[in-house]
């Protein structure tokens, strides 16, 4: 007898949810404890009900499936269900429990659920961090960042960020509306933000180009940037080179 799996469906289309539920009828060991039609309610439900398994769509209102994964506190097993095949499927197949391309067959679906059981039996964990690392979509420019602080989820357009500062394992995003802490590396932001708009001027700082008010010599060979909001930011030697080539001076 298989142990019972408590599952949540996060999917914005009713028909797609119906299909999942119908497929699950033949697998009584999987019990649906919740259904969500958008990313926000998905995060809330998963953190509160702590399911064993989540069927997750990628394209959804409010938050995408990827963004949802990034801010989860509780990490269940994930089976993606999506019509998008371009999101690094191969990397996925190695890391998420499974990746179902719509439309998918009953057999394919059963297979995915079996994989969950298999992983649980062997105790082999696929940490979510591992998965999201591969979904970094390095070919795609970051257009927004999702941050969770306490109960509040904020979606920040990259155009709102004035500058970023490294803080241990986190990065602090400074916006006109306030500051937000995000668990990512400076390297991640450096490679995903539009290099025409953002320049890493220092090991610990990335600034948005159009926020730079002026730059001045601080000590011999070291410069400092003054932002329009009067913040001062140090510039390293390599940072200066990047600024020079980026801003053409």
């Amino acid at each position, binding site marked *: 007898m298989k142990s019972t799996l408590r599952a949540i469906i996060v999917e914005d*289309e*009713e*028909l797609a949810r119906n*299909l999942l539920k119908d497929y699950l009828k033949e697998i009584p060991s999987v019990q649906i404890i919740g259904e969500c039609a958008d990313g926000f309610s998905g995060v809330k439900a998963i953190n509160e009900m702590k399911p064993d398994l989540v069927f997750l769509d990628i394209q959804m209102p409010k938050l995408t499936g990827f963004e949802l994964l990034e801010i989860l506190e509780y990490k269940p097993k994930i089976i993606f269900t999506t*019509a998008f095949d371009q999101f690094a499927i191969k990397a996925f197949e190695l890391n998420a429990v499974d990746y179902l391309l719509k439309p998918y067959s009953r057999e394919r679906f059963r297979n995915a659920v079996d994989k969950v059981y298999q992983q649980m039996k062997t105790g082999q964990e696929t940490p979510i961090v591992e998965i999201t690392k591969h979904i970094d979509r390095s070919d795609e420019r970051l257009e927004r960042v999702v941050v969770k602080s306490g109960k509040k989820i904020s*979606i920040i357009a*990259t155009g709102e960020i004035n500058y970023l500062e490294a803080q241990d394992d986190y990065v602090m995003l400074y916006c006109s509306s306030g500051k937000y802490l995000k668990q990512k590396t400076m390297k991640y932001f450096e490679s995903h933000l539009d290099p025409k708009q953002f320049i890493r001027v220092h090991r610990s700082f990335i600034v948005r180009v159009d926020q730079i008010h002026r730059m001045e010599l601080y000590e011999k060979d070291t410069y400092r940037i003054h932002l329009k909001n009067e913040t001062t930011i140090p510039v390293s030697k390599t940072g200066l080179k990047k600024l020079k080539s980026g801003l053409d001076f």
Partner: protein
Amino acid sequence: MHPILKQKTSRFYFIMAWILLTAIHVLVLNFFYHLEIRYALVDGITFDTILAVIALGLWYPVKFMQAGESRTLGLVLNYLGVALLTIALWLTAGYFIVEMILGEDNEYIPFLDQSMPWRVVSGTLVYLVVLLIYYLILYYSDLQEKIRLEANLKTLVKESELNMFKSQINPHFIFNSLNSINSLILTDHQRAQDMIIKLSEFLRYALKYNQKEKISLQEELHNTHLYLEIEKIRFGEKLRIENRIPEEYKACLIPNMILQPLIENAIKHGVYESTETVTISLDAHAPDDFLNITITNNFDPEQPGRKGNGMGLKNVQNRLMLIYNRSDLFSWNIEGTVFNAELSVPYEV
């Protein structure tokens, strides 16, 4: 910008050419005319330096005349005038400077007087050579510019063709629709069948798509509605459609599949990104000799970023440009939480 002065290398070659010319000048005077070396040096350096400055300055009349005068006779006369002026200037200035440096009472001045006719001849030659060089430079940069423009144009055409092909149908739309059908088969045969028929009819239309062909607004609307009804099966109450296009315009001809990318845009940024009901409305009016069609949709304002790449809108613009050769037939704007796209095509039935 001056073609010789703007680059380090051309400046270098110019100076080298000048040094060479001056050196030959001085040596000829010294060896063949047995002029004392100090006289030869003053003569060579003075006259050649003035000549160098004049040669640089000649660029401006060349540039000016290339832009203005086009008749051959006019050009020749103009250049003759410039030649007379510059050579006269050159010789007079040279003469006075040399005289100032060396004084009037010496064996050099009679030589200088005697050599004047030859200086006119050599000055004319240098003048012609300089003109020739400037014309070559102009011709070469023109050619480069043309090649660059042509290459740009080619990539632009290719890109827009490719993008149009891609924008015909969004593959995710097909796969998501198939998934919905898969679900309906289990619960509602009738609607499943309905959706398959609609999807097939829409796909058949989209595959026939031709960049320049025109069809009646009636037919385009029919196909747009097929698409919208399929999306309505997927999204249910979340999608509302209001068609306010008057009957009288339905016979007008418009490019085929021109509304499709706009509707798709409205769905993508409105319905896909929102949890509330999104209304897409279609309107038309025909002032003057144009048929204006507007498509509006509301969207969730709390969706920072993810604005897409605007490819769909750009394609509409490009196609109207391709067909009507005008770039002012398409516009869009955002007012609060409403997106508004408007296209106008010459009124034809």
